[in-house]
């Protein structure tokens, strides 16, 4: 059981730029924390520091009340699952799973019990005598999970564990990983660049970019109340629409203005002639309501997508994508108006990219 705390941690490789800068992060005991960000954002570096696989240049890393900076990887009660699986090619599946226990001198009977137990839970009992080279990608992933599970570690680290699997397998493995977390009562830290994975799995998500934390919050926080343009753009599929324009006040009501388009905003957004970015998610449009904010445009393309359809709408020179019901009959070239839910509009300062929502942490 472990609470993990980063205190002003920086990490630099050689003389290059810092891979992680001034990281302050408090990971709760038994929490499922997802580090999310594009490649090169420092999320794997952060994970490696927890594992003890990379030195910490500045700052302190705590497990509970112990400083871990100089504790080597093999002395930490940490297990890790790698994107490449990293199974030992010369060992059988059984020995792969048992290896960590052997290194810790777990008695043979206990070791067998734990390996078989894990194998049963992962449904790989029939594979125990095989070599990794004889397994499929999904099976290897299970073995890698098993190898980490049997250790019953207080910290469970996963570095993009599902990236090499095909889409359908990925979904079922997500469920399995959630079960695993529920059963194991360990602190999980999970690195991914897949926002859907993060939203499904996490108790809290840490969005990172260029070695710094952009936002920490529950999946709902991150999705519904992104702290800045980057976070807003990184989550959601299709990507959020970001319309540049101006914030002004019309008859005492704050408005977003872009060319002829005027969208009234809820009270709370303030500023006169301020350059802003309006964030609008594809699913946050509905039928126009008399008093509500309205988005007008011209349908450019209609793309049926099974259960519903996406429309590409030209709005004052910006191609916005919105999701509408499948049965709404629209033709390309037709003028169209949508009602917007004021509480689901996102507004960012153009210069800093920060959310202008009041009471929002920067």
């Amino acid at each position: 059981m472990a609470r993990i705390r980063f205190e002003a941690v920086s990490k630099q490789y050689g003389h290059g730029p810092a891979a992680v800068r001034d990281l302050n992060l408090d990971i709760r005991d038994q929490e499922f924390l997802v580090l999310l960000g594009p490649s090169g954002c420092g999320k794997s570096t952060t994970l490696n520091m927890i594992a003890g696989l990379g030195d910490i240049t500045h700052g302190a890393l705590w497990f509970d009340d112990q400083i871990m900076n100089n504790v080597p990887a093999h002395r930490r009660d940490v297990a890790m699952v790698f994107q490449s699986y990293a199974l030992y090619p010369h060992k059988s599946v059984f020995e792969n799973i048992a290896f960590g226990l052997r290194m810790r001198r777990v008695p043979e009977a206990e070791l067998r019990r734990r390996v078989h137990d894990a194998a049963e839970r992962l449904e790989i009992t029939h594979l125990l005598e095989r070599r990794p080279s004889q397994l499929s990608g999904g099976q290897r992933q299970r073995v890698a999970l098993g190898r980490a599970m049997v250790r019953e570690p207080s910290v469970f680290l996963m570095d993009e564990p599902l990236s090499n699997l095909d889409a359908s397998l990925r979904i079922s493995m997500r469920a399995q990983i959630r079960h695993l977390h529920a059963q194991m009562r360990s602190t999980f830290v999970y690195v991914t660049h897949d926002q859907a994975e993060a939203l499904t799995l996490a108790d809290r998500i840490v969005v990172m970019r260029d070695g710094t934390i952009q936002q920490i919050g529950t999946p709902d926080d991150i999705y519904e109340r992104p702290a800045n343009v980057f976070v807003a753009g990184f989550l959601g599929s299709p990507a959020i629409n970001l319309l540049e324009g101006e914030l002004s006040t019309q008859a005492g009501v704050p408005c977003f203005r872009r060319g002829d388009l005027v969208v009234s905003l809820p009270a709370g957004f303030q500023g006169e002639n301020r350059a802003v970015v309006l964030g609008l998610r594809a699913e946050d449009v509905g039928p126009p309501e008399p008093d509500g904010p309205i988005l007008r445009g011209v349908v450019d393309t209609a793309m049926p997508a099974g259960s519903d359809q996406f429309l590409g709408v030209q709005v004052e020179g910006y191609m916005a994508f919105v999701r509408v019901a499948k049965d709404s009959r629209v033709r390309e070239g037709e003028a169209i108006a949508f009602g917007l839910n004021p509480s689901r509009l996102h507004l960012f300062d153009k210069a800093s990219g920060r959310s202008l929502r009041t009471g929002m942490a920067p």
Partner: protein
Amino acid sequence: MNTAPLIVRPLLWPRILRFCLLAAASVLLLAYLLAPVFWLVSSSVQTEREIVSIPPHWIPDQPTLQNFKAIFLTGLGYASPSANGADPTSGGFIPSVAGNLLPSMANSFIVALCVVVLNLLVGVPAAYAIAKLRFRGRNLALYVILATRVIPDIALVVPFFLVVRKLGMLDSLASLIVTYLAITVPFSVFVLVSFFEQMPDDLDRAARVDGCSRPQVLLHVFLPLARPALVAVGLFAFLASWNEFLLALMFTQTAASQTLPIIVAGITSDFTVSFSFLNAAGVLAVLPPVLLAVIFERYIVSGLTAGAVKG
């Protein structure tokens, strides 16, 4: 209109011709390579008179094991020039060094084995460190190690000799072991570095998270995987030591420390040369390397190419 694709059947006879040419070339090459070896073995069981007969007898008429008897049963009086009653001037006799052949073979074995073992003991940790640890001067270390191999052996003979003499190691096996290590370790490190570098870093990291210290990672994960490279490196060190002549000639003076190449070369410097005996000694000299090569054949190719691909 007929749109069926036009099928051009390759003619048969060019393929037959190709096969014949390839086969002929292979046979020629094989004969070129194997004929001397065959002659070596064949003449080692011929009498001196038969060896010099024209045309040569590839298959001996009267095979004899007298040379091998002289080598292996030296204590039983076979080694004296008069033992087989032959005339020393005709060359059909057993040279006096016959008795030294087995001891020198033992010397060669001891030296080669020590060099192999020490090569692996030194080379494996060095290569692992260079391949998998991040430390300042990592590349420099590799280049310096390799640079020592740019200097030809002959240039090193005098410095080596002075060092060995100062250390009081002249005429001892230790002098050979030390100098052979200096020659073989850089190559071993280079081959092993290339091999370790090919192994995924995640394997190293996984083992460390699983509870291995660095030496344990090496022992439990990398060494079992590196077997082909270890065999290639060990074999190379063995052959280099087994065949080495120049340094052994300089550093050893008595039968107590002389190695097989020195003794065999000595046979030719006798007043008259017994070719049949020389060839018998030659057979003994090539036997151990050939046996090793046959035993480890399946490892050698993958081991050496593993080192070769990465520049």
